[in-house]
């Protein structure tokens, strides 16, 4: 045994260095991707393409928030539109009531859903998976019904306009509403979200929550409290969903109860699962693909639901791990064959 120790020590050292290297890599990759986003409006001239891409990216952020919840908590939210819509309505109501500066409202629109999710999470993350899903749905639908009936201030089913000041964070508000600049803003937000979530997932907290997802009892018997971390994941996911809602409200300057409806939650969930939530970036990819395909099919035929539905069935049956699962598998195969080649 003693002779083995030096070799082991070397291995131990190598492994810890590899772990330390990851963080700068993530930051660097995120920086490059964000920078690439700035080039897009120059390459893509069409306003139409840019506005579609902007909407796709906003959906991608929502899908990412759902995917993160699945990945870290193993829980599926059927009502994530609640956080999206909550944020959008907070922006709109603040515009109407002038309760606080719009900059503060942006932060509040992210913080309030997060706080709400945290305290709700303390109660509901313990439920069986399907019950959790249904309760998130229940909360979202209750909010939907509330906004549908709140005619006085929120315009009921007619929705309400989001009144914004002429400058937000020192940036001309027009930039948040023109597709070419808003694409860059949303894209950077998406990249930042994915980078931050990736770092969180790799941190101790991320590993801990996956451990709890896998085996909550064992996590308790290695000494961890398991409730708060799960509620925190829910809160973080809600904050990201809220961010998507803020971007949506800025870009569209209009909110309706549809932003809380279960069909939006369902669609975002589909995007997340198609993309494969086991990779942080999977749901975003799924969202972009789903959005583009749905749009293209909608242009072609009014029978788009059948085509989308059939594709959904085929894709999930063939790729139960989602697109990211497939890419990861290909990547692994590729690496293995290269290693085999070397040997």
């Amino acid at each position, binding site marked *: 045994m003693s002779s083995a120790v030096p070799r082991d020590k070397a291995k131990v050292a190598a492994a810890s260095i590899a772990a330390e290297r990851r963080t700068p890599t993530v930051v660097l990759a995120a920086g490059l991707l964000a920078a690439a986003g700035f080039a897009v409006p120059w390459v893509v001239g*069409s*306003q*139409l393409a840019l*506005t*579609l891409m902007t*909407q796709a990216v906003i959906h991608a952020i929502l899908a990412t928030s759902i995917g993160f919840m699945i990945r870290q908590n193993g829980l599926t939210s059927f009502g994530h539109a609640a956080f999206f819509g909550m944020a959008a309505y907070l922006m709109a109501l603040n515009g109407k009531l002038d309760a606080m500066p719009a900059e503060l409202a942006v932060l509040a629109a992210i913080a309030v859903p997060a706080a709400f999710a945290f305290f709700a999470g303390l109660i509901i993350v313990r439920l069986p998976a399907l019950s959790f899903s249904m309760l998130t749905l229940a909360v979202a639908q209750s909010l939907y*019904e509330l906004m*549908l*009936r709140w*005619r006085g201030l929120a*315009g*009921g*089913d*007619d*929705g309400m*306009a989001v009144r914004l000041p002429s400058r937000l964070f020192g940036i001309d508000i027009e930039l948040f*509403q023109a597709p070419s600049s808003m694409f860059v803003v949303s894209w950077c937000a998406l990249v930042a979200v994915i980078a931050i979530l990736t770092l969180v997932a790799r941190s101790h907290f991320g590993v801990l929550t996956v451990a709890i997802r896998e085996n909550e009892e064992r996590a308790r018997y290695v000494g961890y409290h398991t409730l708060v971390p799960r509620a925190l994941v829910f809160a973080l996911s809600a904050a990201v969903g809220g961010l998507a809602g803020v971007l949506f409200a800025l870009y*569209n*300057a*209009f909110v*309706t109860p*549809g*932003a809380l*409806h279960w*069909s939006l939650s369902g669609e975002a969930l589909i995007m997340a699962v198609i993309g494969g939530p086991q990779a942080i970036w999977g749901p975003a990819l799924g969202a972009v693909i789903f959005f583009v395909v749905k749009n293209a099919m*909608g*242009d072609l035929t*009014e029978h*788009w*639901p059948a085509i989308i539905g059939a594709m959904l069935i085929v894709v999930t049956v063939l790729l139960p791990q989602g697109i990211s699962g497939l890419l990861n598998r290909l990547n692994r195969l590729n690496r293995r064959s290269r290693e085999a080649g070397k040997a």
Partner: protein
Amino acid sequence: MIDSKRATFLGLSAVAVSAVLATSAWAAKEPLKIGVPTSLTGPYSQLGDEVKRAVEFAVNEANAAGGVDGRKVEVRFLDTEAKPDLARQQAEKLALEGYNIMTATIASSEVLAIGPMLGRWNALYVATVTKANDITGKQCQPRLFRVNRPDYSDAAVIQPWLATRSEAKWAIVAADYAWGRGSGEGFRNAAAATGKTVVSENYPPLGSNDYAAFIQKVLDSGAQGMWVALAGRDAITFARQAKQFGLFDKVTTAGISFTTDGTVKVLGDVVKGINTIINYSATLDTPANRKFVSDWAKAYPGDSPTNFGGETYIGMQVIFQAVKKAGSVKPADVAKAMAGGTFETILGTQLMRKEDHQLVGPNYFGIVEAVNGTLRPAIKMTVPAQTATPGPDANCKL
């Protein structure tokens, strides 16, 4: 059935199109591109179908006659599923693709979502079946127009009709959202003005599956008459269940959007004898309308235009005439020609008010009865345009 109708229609129009193409009269001018963001799927797809057929009819008719102002008319439909967010997305897409003169969306909330963006997209929109007062009121826009009767016009029709009724006690059943609530209020005011009492007010949620609770409440209230503001699926479900409870036999029933051409076709005898506000009816006896109805029957054999179809056709007439008058398809020019202009529609000569962009037109009241052997809402009372479309909406600041 529908398919064979379509096939005939397409066949006819293909002949017409090729005849005109031979002369290639419109090769030189920029085409008129009309975008229709409407409900092709989802809960309102049936209404979407009605307006779609009217738009297609108008476009084919115009092209067969050599186009509008010598321009070919092109049309593109995109699905909104009646969701305001999606409507806005699809309308933006249509506008950016050049289909920047738009019309025929189903839900008011969709139009209200599209309205504020029209300037940014450099587009124009003509509402044809959406009734929310705000469209030509609080939320009116320079590029937003409406040809159909708004809610306040329907409210204005209730009172003259109610004055002729002997029933003293009334109940209200209206869908629990802006339109239903607004209609309920309109009825309440009309009842107060004509000395009737409202003994029971019910606002069932949108998309209810069971109306028994409300039907029972109306039965228990001792009402002699009932005002119903339910539409589409809600209307059909309510009517079927109310009939089973014998409600229609016990109280005089009247409504808005409750018995439309579409719902009457589905419900048949269930709603026979129900009174209703009629915004448009194929039974209207004017020369222009008679011609429209007979041309429609040629294009879609065995069919006649529905209320929503007729209203949408009016919208198309207004667009075509405005384009001709402007001599341009640029939304800014067409809007200028539209505001304050007068238009020859199937309801006669009508003014598009420049103050609020509302087309001034008459409104009607009638009853569901057999016309030429088919059950449908038939006009019994005409409320002239000055009464039906009272002064420009003061909330609108253009």
